């Protein structure tokens, strides 16, 4: 299972900061200060590999950024996936997944007891579109093991059930 949130959901996710206000009587109570925990925990647990990608100069409304995968991004991704044994490109963070499918894979990796890194693709539209081309996979999450694309949620679940995933992860962590 995997999802590729599209245009409308993008709108909601980009306007994640709630604009509502509770009005009780004459006092307007603004929502509490802690917002987007996803984003915050991402920065706190952020990766050593800085992904510096020039964001689309065009507005986000160019939903399908064609050729999002420029050579520069490709080189960066090559480095990112090969410098981590297990890396998951997901919606949200390890501690705050923002999609059920991403959450499923995080839970599987946790239970497999191997160190893994995650990258929140919701933080970078260019990265998100570029990765789809890079992996030739239309949805997220995307799991890479030992520098190789392993699969999305369905494949990971299947491999977990069969024991194949555990085997592969062990091999990866030993190599």
């Amino acid at each position, binding site marked *: 299972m995997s999802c590729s949130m*599209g245009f409308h959901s993008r709108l909601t996710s980009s306007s994640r900061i709630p604009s509502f206000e509770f009005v009780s009587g004459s006092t307007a109570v603004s929502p509490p200060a802690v917002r987007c925990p996803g984003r915050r925990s991402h920065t706190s647990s952020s990766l050593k590999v800085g992904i510096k990608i020039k964001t689309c100069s065009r507005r986000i409304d160019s939903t399908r950024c064609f050729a999002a995968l420029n050579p520069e991004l490709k080189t960066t991704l090559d480095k990112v996936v090969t410098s981590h044994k297990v890396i998951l490109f997901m919606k949200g963070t390890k501690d705050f997944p923002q999609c059920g*499918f991403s959450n499923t894979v995080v839970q599987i990796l946790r239970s497999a007891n191997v160190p893994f890194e995650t990258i929140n693709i919701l933080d970078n539209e260019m990265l998100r579109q570029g990765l789809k081309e890079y992996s030739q*996979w239309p949805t997220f999450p995307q799991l890479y093991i030992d520098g190789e694309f392993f699969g999305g949620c369905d494949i990971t679940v299947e491999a977990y059930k069969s024991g194949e995933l555990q085997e592969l992860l062990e091999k990866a962590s030993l190599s």
Partner: protein
Amino acid sequence: MGVSKEQVESALRSKLSPSHIEVIDTSGGCGASFQVEIVSEEFEGKRLLERHRMVNGALVEEMKDIHALSITKALTPDQWKIKQQESATSQPPSTTTVA
């Protein structure tokens, strides 16, 4: 915006000529989320990842409007037969005597 179950099914039928296919609309009406079970000879000798790539490839157009696609089964006819036999035998024996 959304895609219909029939569209997904016919795209898969025409591109992967499945011997069995079941598409379930899991979107609750908006047509943006589907579950697919597919059996095709074309999966023969291919790893699961490649099979999923084939399904994704067959749905390139539809995927533009689909947010979530879950491929629950991508089997060859032989695997499908085995699966069915398994599920038939794993079912509890029918109780012929009723107290």
